[in-house]
């Protein structure tokens, strides 16, 4: 009966050391994986090393990353906004309508899109906070609603310059130069979409982890009852999270619209799942095991690195989903299998 004699001493030390290694893997494993892939691609693909590749990769990632940051905020308050993809898609159609059909300036389109994003967020908040519909179900309904509603004023067509309107006339406007600059322009060598992404990532990170509002939002996600009894206005915070998610998705949609340069009705369709994936991947970064802005940004970048690298290595396009799936698997293994957080909960409460 070895068990009855060796509960103390040597075996304990061994066990302790292996647990420390595991902690290290959980904490830094994800960042290490990102760096490793980056170094590997940079070493094997000459084109990957160029800074233009770097920026185009980040630019390409920014749309998903920004939608993911908004989604992260709803995850922090214990929800999940399934309408981010549809909101971004709506943003594309609304920008096109404002500029092409109503012949308005780019900034009008910009304001209309941000306002629409905030309204969708407010609508989600109404369903969730006032009507008490579970987050997933409410935002799923919203997703369908806006996917359909955005097609009504455009008769289900993609809006581009020269579109023939219902009354037979030709649409008078076009995507303005200024609006197209959102995607094409750059600050020094850094493309605007990357600037927007990085600024929003830092702002979101600061908001969530350094302000009292972020503290309250995490409390609500973890134990809404305890938050309420400590005096938090839970409903208001959740409403704010959904409105911010709506605005972020609208910003992602603006970049997308500027990139496509027309009101493509299928734009944003694949965005939801990608945004969910990067947010989930983000929960495993640094072993924090909770949604966080830094993780979401890094998750988006890792997926961007992998997609760019594999594309440059001439993997066929259908490998992209395989790559995303694998990254998500690895991240989930970090979060659920390797993390000691749950076991610590049991072992640390001997009484």
């Amino acid at each position, binding site marked *: *009966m070895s068990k009855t004699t060796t509960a103390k001493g040597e075996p*304990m030390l061994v066990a302790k050391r292996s647990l420390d290694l595991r902690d290290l893997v959980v904490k830094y494993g994800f960042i290490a994986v990102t760096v490793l892939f980056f170094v590997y691609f940079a070493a094997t693909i000459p084109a990957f090393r160029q800074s233009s590749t770097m920026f185009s990769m980040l630019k390409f990632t920014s749309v998903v990353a920004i939608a993911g940051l908004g989604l992260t905020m709803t995850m922090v308050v214990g929800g999940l906004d399934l309408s981010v993809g549809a909101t971004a898609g709506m943003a594309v159609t609304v920008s096109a309508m404002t500029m092409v059909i109503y012949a308005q300036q780019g900034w009008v389109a910009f304001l209309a899109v941000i306002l629409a994003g905030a309204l969708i967020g407010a609508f989600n908040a109404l369903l969730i906070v006032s009507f008490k519909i579970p987050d997933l179900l409410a935002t799923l309904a919203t997703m369908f609603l806006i996917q359909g509603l955005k097609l009504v004023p455009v008769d289900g067509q993609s809006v581009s310059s020269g579109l023939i309107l219902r009354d037979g006339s030709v649409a008078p406007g076009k995507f303005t130069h200024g609006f197209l600059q959102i995607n094409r322009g750059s600050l020094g060598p850094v493309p605007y979409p990357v600037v927007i992404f990085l600024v929003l990532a830092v702002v979101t990170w600061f908001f969530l982890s350094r*302000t009292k509002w972020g*503290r309250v939002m995490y409390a609500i996600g973890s134990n809404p009852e305890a938050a309420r009894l*400590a005096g938090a206005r839970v409903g208001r915070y959740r409403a704010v999270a959904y409105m911010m998610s709506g605005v972020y998705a609208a910003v992602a949609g603006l970049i997308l619209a500027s990139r496509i340069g027309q009101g493509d009705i299928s734009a944003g369709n694949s965005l939801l799942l990608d945004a969910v994936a990067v947010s989930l991947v983000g929960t495993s970064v640094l072993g924090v095991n909770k949604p966080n802005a830094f993780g979401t940004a890094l998750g988006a970048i890792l997926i961007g690195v992998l997609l760019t690298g594999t594309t440059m290595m001439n993997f066929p396009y259908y490998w992209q989903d395989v790559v995303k799936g694998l990254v998500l698997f690895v991240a989930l293994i970090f979060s659920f299998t390797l993390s000691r957080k749950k076991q610590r909960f049991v*072992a*640390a*409460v001997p*009484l």
Partner: protein
Amino acid sequence: MQTAVEMRDITMSFGANEVLKGINLELEPGKVTAILGANGAGKSTLIKVLSGVYNGYGGTVIIDGAAVDIDHPTTARAHGIEAVHQKIADGIVPGLSVAENFLFEAIVNNEVSRAASLRSLMPRAREVASVLDLDWPDDLLRSDIYGLPIADQQMLLLARALVHEPRLLILDEPTSALSETEAARLFGVIRRLRNDGVAILYISHRLGEIEDIADRLLVLRDGIFVSDQGSPFDWAQALHAMLGAAEDDPHERTGELHGTETVLSLKGVQLLPKSAPFDLDFRAGEVTGVFGLLGSGGTELAHGIFGEERFRAGEMELKGERFDPKAPADAIARDVYMVPEDRVAGTIIKDWSIAMISTFPFLKDVSRLSVMNPMAEAKVGRSVIEEFGVVAQGAADPVISLSGGNQQKVVVGRWLRKQPTVMVLNEPFQGVDVGARHDLAEKTRDVAVAGSTVIVMSTDLEEIMQVSDRVIVLADGNLRHDAYLSETSREEILERLSEVE
């Protein structure tokens, strides 16, 4: 006499933390052995070792003269050891019927098909129920377990344990969720089992219960037994052994407090659907204890004052102004605070440190322009640890790593340190050991002395008498009694409680 279960030199460690340091214990059939110990003494660990929840312990467990290795709950069960753990919710499966809950083990072990119709389960469920003579009607067996009163859920768990005819039954704080009548029913069952020759290990913080039911009392402190006595017990000795000091009355320091200034007035407040409205004033500078059995309206009263739920009728005045909180945030804005009855569900946030839990209701104090100041936060955490005697390594310790009593000190302390206008403590001593209870009672009285209006709700009269100056008795939502402790007596309080109107 042959022992039912014998433990020799049992040790158990978590990392560097040695929780059990050599437990020697012989449990005899037909005897109730009670274990008393402060939070963190190792009681739960001992139970979990014996019931196979933790393996990897050191030492030997001997049953029928042979050493056995209890490495899993099923092994424990095979050796005739059954445990009913403290949290009733852990044993109950919500969403299933009462009958299915009775047969839960059989369902898990595939002895009963999960697809079996409820009707076909009924005879077997009734068989399990009959172990405790639970003569529940079929309607009840068919209904969802969620609707079953908590005391009956406890009985169900007990029946499920007893159906295996254990040689040793372990009961961990079995009355913590029960009212006095319900507890009396449980004691009847325990006495019957004792007469049937079952060895019973009884863990409780409630001294009165141990006095009532136990044949032998062991005191556990820092992972080792420090006192062992047969009935009748010398309580002063036992408490001294448990705490390392004699327990004194928290009233001693302050005397009975009589407040003069009315701070919170209830006017025509109705607590329960059929109860009578009443007026009631709470005064600053004294502790008002609200005593009543489970479901007598104490919780409704606490919730109404804190804005969690509106009263059925009536209104409140705070310092002469209308007070109508629609949410806890409204009450807190006027310095009316509450500690909820369910510590885990109502206050604990997983992964949060002592400092974070301590500062949470008042983030303004530890932030500037809404940006958190970690230094200020740690300082508040440390001051709560110091002022309230929380046993912890530091303010960064996760709050769930603390024992129940120490968690409670943190969640009570975070409000008390703000010198509340009105402090409502709903069942503040549940799952809290005697030592921590004494500390909390003293701190509670201190804020009353400093001018707060303090209201303590409890279903335990001993607790009420320990902490309060004035006692309110509630029964079925009706106000039955209102007197200072020096003007009334335990007998009178109980008499008022049992009066029929």
